């Protein structure tokens, strides 16, 4: 089973996104490097808008992750509520 990953900047703006990913993907593994974090998950990684909003208490447009995003792998599916990376559609 292959991993998918997402890499995000280690910034204030990315923190609730990182927290939400760790909460919604129990198999997530986090690696810190200077100025960035990389999160690997077997097969499928999901980012949920609601989870981010619950952490910050503010409305969040999932497209805002473009501002913090560094890199990713896998196939992407995005709608208003979820951003999903996976192998095999």
């Amino acid at each position: 089973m292959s991993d998918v990953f997402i890499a995000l900047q280690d910034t204030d703006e990315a923190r609730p996104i990182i927290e939400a990913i760790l909460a919604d993907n129990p198999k997530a593994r986090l690696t810190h490097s200077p100025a960035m974090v990389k999160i690997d998950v077997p097969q499928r990684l999901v980012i949920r808008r609601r989870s981010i909003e619950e952490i910050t208490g503010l409305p969040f447009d999932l497209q805002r992750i473009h501002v913090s995003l560094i890199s990713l792998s896998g196939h992407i599916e995005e709608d208003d509520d979820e951003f999903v990376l996976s192998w095999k559609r």
Partner: protein
Amino acid sequence: MDTRLEKKKLSLRERYHLMTRGLGWEPTYQPADKVFPFTTYEGIKIHDWDKFEDPFRLTMDAYWKYQGEKEKKLYAVIDAFAQNNGFLNISDARYLNAIKIFIQGVTPLEYYAHRGFAFAGRHFRGEGLRVACQMQSLDELRHTQTEIHAISPYNRFFNGFHHPRHWFDRMWYLSVPKSFFEDANTGGPFEFLTAISFSFEYVLTNLLFLPFMSGAAYNGDLSTVTFGFSAQSDESRHMTLGIECIKFMLEQDEANVPIVQHWIDKWFWRGYRVLTLVGMMMDYMLPKRVMSWREAWEIYGEQNGGALFNDLARYGIREPAGFRDAIDGKDHISHQAWLTFYTYNPLAAFHTWVPTDAELDWLSAKYPESFDKYYRPRLLYLREQEKAGKPVANKNLPLLCNVCQIPMFFTEPGNPRMICYRESVYEGERYHFCSDHCKAIFDHEPEKYVQSWLPVQQILQGNCFKPGTDPTAPGFDPVAAVLDYYELNVGRDNFWYEGSEDQRNFAAWRAAAQNN
């Protein structure tokens, strides 16, 4: 009283469809194949252009909004960096030699990418693909500009930053990245997308930007790390275009599979060869190191690339032909490149050095199979010679590979004691290659690669001297004439770091920064 109903917001999917698909039309003044003359000659068959969909579903209005935010953040940092003498806070001035290679060899590629995607966006049919190419074209122009702005403060204080545009078209080692991108830009639009979006952006770019950006942060280079972040946030979109366009071609027609496979074989290898320079930057040029080239290759090349090619197997795509040889090279290429640049640095616009003892030990730990056995003794010899006042300089012109244009220093897969040579004869002329894969690229399209502008051949033909130079004059020094043609500041831009003006200035300024 009327109840005011809240207007229902369109979903991301609906918005994307309205703001891309509605933009196209069927031409009536001219037949479509005249308006789009390049969409068929490569042999790729497309039955339904509308099947291409950007999974980010980014529309132009959202694009401008987020790009504007990124720019504001970036320029605030660049200003702060310049105002606060940020150049004094880097780990060591040796680090800046990696940034010199970046502005000399990578930034011009961003501009080529801008042009390439503008071309692709013009010549594809299908609005989804055209909009994605248009956004990437704008991104790449932005990267060119922001990199020049972010790196320019260093030009006020350090050598080797003053003439990158001039050097890119002339300097021998810069023909490696230049010929790579010109090869892509002179392919058809589908080959271009496979070359740059898929093979380079999706498969290989992580190896450049992730360790590089993290490395810049680790070495205190606030300006570079910030443009790195800002550019990289666009890269995810580029990578996505890369994998989506590959799937699009493969799903449209089975006959596309062998064409795409050939391009993947070719462009994986072309990109991998260019990244030799990055391997050298990571292992030798960052005073504070994040990870070795080998580690980065294992994570982003082997694991991530492996997962990708497993996934694409369902379309009948296999891993690139050079993948196994690239794995074999992970223990060697960065060291072989550094040893070559060390001895050729009289002819280069950046400095080289022998690593410190602690750095040599780091390399031994990171390369247990190869470093002590093959490379440490050679570096120690170079150090000895340097200390004895006889630094080893090579003024002989090397044999270049006719495809990747890198001097022939790579060794045989499985035998690091034997230089790898391959050759082909085409129309009575003999051509040389560094590997089976560069040879295969030539053999498939010899008409293209016989036209390669090879710096060494050009020097020998007398094409790299300034007008009016007389090579028959008594005492003519061809190397000095070539350096004059490069417009290199001899003694300041080139030679060893030890004893350089950069080294002296940085030490003096750092001392001054700590006292009155």
